[in-house]
């Protein structure tokens, strides 16, 4: 497959106005702005050179310091035997603006994974056909994979920070 730089240029040519940066790494990836995500993904899905026909993995990553939640997509092409092509997008962490366009209309396989990210990170996927919690129960409040989530029962010895007496320590 083309290098990440080349993929970036080709997406930019097809989707004018998109903000795309190359994230270096063992597997280089492209960070796309949320507004142009669907158009960019549609391009790599339909382009005869790439044909990214399978979305294997949709992941959420919480960055409380930067105030963003990053969503990482892994695409493969079964037809062209290419991949993974990794796209990322960053959405604001705060509850009111935590929205991302859904890829479920393009890839049916993204449906449950987007529901999982909605459940655990609180990202609302606009255009998702059935956005509701998938792992936690319906009455659950909060998004437990966010790093500032405080779980309830802190009643074990470790949680209570029981003072260790000097004679109990093992040297």
């Amino acid at each position, binding site marked *: 497959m083309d290098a990440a730089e080349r993929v970036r240029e080709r997406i930019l040519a097809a989707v004018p106005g998109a903000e795309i940066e190359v994230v270096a790494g063992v597997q280089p990836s492209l960070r796309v702005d949320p507004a142009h995500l669907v158009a960019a993904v549609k391009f790599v899905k339909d382009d005869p050179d790439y044909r990214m026909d399978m979305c294997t993995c949709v992941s959420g990553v919480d960055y409380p310091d930067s105030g963003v939640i990053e969503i990482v997509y892994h695409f493969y092409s079964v037809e062209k035997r290419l991949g993974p092509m990794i796209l990322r997008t960053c959405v604001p962490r705060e509850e009111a603006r935590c929205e991302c366009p859904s890829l479920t209309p393009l890839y049916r396989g993204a449906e449950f994974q987007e529901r999982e990210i909605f459940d655990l990170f609180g990202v609302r996927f606009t255009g998702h056909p059935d956005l509701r919690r998938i*792992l*936690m*129960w319906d*009455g*659950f*409040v*909060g998004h*437990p994979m966010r790093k500032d*989530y405080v*779980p*309830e*029962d802190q*009643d*074990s*010895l470790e949680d*209570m920070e*029981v003072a260790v007496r000097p004679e109990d320590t093992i040297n």
Partner: protein
Amino acid sequence: MADEGLKSELQKSGIFVTTIEELYNWGRKNSIWPMQFGLACCAIEMIATAASRFDLARFGAELFRASPRQADLMIVAGTVTKKMAPQVVRLYNQMPDPKYVIAMGACAISGGPFRDGYNVLKGIDRFIPVDVHIPGCPPRPEALLQGLIMLQEKITGDKLEDAEWYKDPEHGEFPVPQYGTNGLVPRYNAEIWKPWTPPKESESAS
């Protein structure tokens, strides 16, 4: 209880003496019917224990029942998530008396490696009474057999006159926890489990 010496003397002359209690417990301990359900990887070890190499049938407990109504042992084999805990308690309530519980593996005992998680119950003994705890992650089949033998010893020691299920046949069910906003409500059954509290200064000094 019959005199042990007299019993063995009589046995030498071909007379077998026993009590109803002994006979009854002997029968019960050698035909424990476990319930057929597993929650996580410990269930694989439980299956291995039931299969030919380790052969749970040697101890009369090979008849895994698919219905709680026909089972008298619940092997809690694996991680109990908060979402699953109400169902486990409900299954336990549906079992007929006398019933026993084995907590198999670190997760069923305390939450194990997942105890810091938001979604895992920190030990099934918060909601139902556990008879035998088997540590391990997962426990070897030998450990499960050892746990079963310990349970058999416990059954042998049961006294009919003060057995709970005869004294109080109408005893209520254990309350099934409800899903709350961030976990189970109540967080534990206060009648059978309490969080650790620091000992009083005077007690710790003695």
